[in-house]
């Protein structure tokens, strides 16, 4: 086994209705300190987590969506969103937050973190992982 394991955070649930989305993100932030390979996968209702302009003021609870935009600072560059899940829900990439990371090898250029994948591409992503944490 190599020293670095591939960790995958598998998100299938909508935010706010249940706490899984938020507590999953808390694991990701802690996990980032461990220098493992890290992928986030959003599939089914999990894609709703990344919808932009979330505003919980009227609900009276914490809005945790801004935390997603901090993922780049934690060196998390692989955020896979399943295309079929997005399409079924009538959403496009434009409905999601624009998440980026800065590439130090390319003069700190901002690069997209969200990678739109088809079901077939997702198969390959999942196959490669060593540890899958499901939420």
């Amino acid at each position: 086994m190599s020293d670095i394991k591939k960790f995958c955070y598998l998100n299938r649930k909508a935010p706010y209705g249940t706490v899984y989305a938020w507590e999953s993100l808390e694991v990701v932030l802690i996990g980032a300190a461990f220098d493992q390979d890290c992928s986030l996968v959003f599939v089914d209702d999990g894609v709703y987590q990344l919808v932009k302009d979330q505003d919980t003021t009227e609900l009276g609870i914490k809005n945790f969506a801004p935390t997603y935009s901090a993922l780049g600072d934690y060196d998390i560059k692989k955020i896979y969103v399943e295309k079929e899940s997005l399409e079924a829900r009538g959403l496009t990439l434009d409905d999601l937050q624009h998440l980026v990371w800065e590439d130090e090898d390319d003069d700190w250029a901002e690069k997209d973190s969200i990678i739109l994948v088809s079901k077939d591409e997702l198969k390959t992503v999942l196959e490669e992982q060593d540890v899958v944490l499901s939420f």
Partner: protein
Amino acid sequence: MKFSIQVNEGPYTHESSVSALNFVKAAIEAGHEVFRVFFYHDGVNNGTRYTTPPQDDINIVNTWSELAKANNIDLVVCVAAAQRRGIVDEGEAERNGKDGNNIADGFRISGLGQLIEAGIESDRLVVFGD
């Protein structure tokens, strides 16, 4: 009009506690009476004083306690559900040999009959759950 509310899920874990809180506040603002909130299933976890939610989030347990005090709402935690989940008041601690209790201010532990009674005596029973 006289409302009662049933809450089936724990705070933070599920939105139902927040939905119920917001519904109760709006009902009171509209001049209605909220007779009882009955906490069942994991809803009993709304009634522990041991929670320490993040500073930047709502404190659900305290909000219940304050709302109940200001508006004379009966907050009832189901005893059978509480025993399975570890919510204990003084009486329960004594009966079940526990060395302490964790019930929050303004909540009381009682039987399922209180839910049926709420259904009979209220004009509307509204259930929030998963």
